[in-house]
């Protein structure tokens, strides 16, 4: 799937969360809409992580192609008759080797980045769980004091 589908999907989910926060007065529903927005971000992070994973795969493939070409060039160099052509073949083989090493390094970095993306989603979930426990405790306390979960009653702090 192209990643822009995921971008649009996550944006739509996020905006639904924003609309919910703006249009509802029940504190619990507002809280749920915040969870919705967090999840939109999570989806985006996972899809970007998979984009990096795909890039890592293509780079590994490129590195494998370079290595194959290098092996072929070295074989040709072994059977080369003149010293000059042997030298150029070996130089090209070395170039391919360097390219393969560079590609592998890039791919390793991409792979690490992809894993980091998913771990950030994990940490977002951790923080969301902690946030929900404290937030719901606050809402329960508020309900005990004013017998309502309407956020419009929470303007007392103003004066």
């Amino acid at each position: 799937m192209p990643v822009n589908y995921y971008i649009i999907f996550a944006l739509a989910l996020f905006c639904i969360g924003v609309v919910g926060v703006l249009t509802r007065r029940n504190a619990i529903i507002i809280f749920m809409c915040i969870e919705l927005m967090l999840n939109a971000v999570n989806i985006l992070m996972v899809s970007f992580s998979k984009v990096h994973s795909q890039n890592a795969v293509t780079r590994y493939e490129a590195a494998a192609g370079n290595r194959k070409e290098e092996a072929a060039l070295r074989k040709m160099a072994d059977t080369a008759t003149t010293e000059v052509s042997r030298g150029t073949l070996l130089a090209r083989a070395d170039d391919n080797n360097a390219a393969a090493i560079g590609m592998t390094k890039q791919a390793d970095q991409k792979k690490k980045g992809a894993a980091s993306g998913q771990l950030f989603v994990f940490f977002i979930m951790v923080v969301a769980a902690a946030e929900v426990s404290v937030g719901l405790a606050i809402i329960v306390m508020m309900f005990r004091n004013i017998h309502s979960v309407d956020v419009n009653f929470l303007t007392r702090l103003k004066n």
Partner: protein
Amino acid sequence: MNITQILFWFLTILALGSALMVIFSKNPVHSVLWLVATFFAISGHYILLNAQFLAIVNIIVYAGAIMVLFLFVIMLMNLNASTEPQKSKWLRLAGGIAGGCLMLVLVAALRDTEIKTQMAQMRDGDIGLIQNLGMSLFQDYVVPFEISSILFLSAMVGAVVIGKKGD
């Protein structure tokens, strides 16, 4: 259209539809149940992207723990459609327009990004498997992991202190 695309569209429509039902249903309990449906659809997306660890954690933590907490609180307060506070029609309309404008601006801004031609790897790839994530978590992210455990401890203490009755 292959099976991956069909699943993608099905899960997307399911997620967006239930997200809309979350904000449109009058009864808070129904909102919670629709939100659980949304989380299941999002977990389906994670499975489609082969992020299996996150899919399971999403179901266990979000749909399992957090939503049950919400349900408990709603039932504790005995909320239903008749006690639901309503905003005036104009405020709701304004909220909808504001959210729609945000969506419009973000989509317009991100439409021509460089990344949009890139493909997300579907169905395969070993990034999301628990082995890779565990290695990365305990090699590169040990300190944040421990800090999050302290965060949990403080959240637990905070919830008990706030929720405690009396003085």
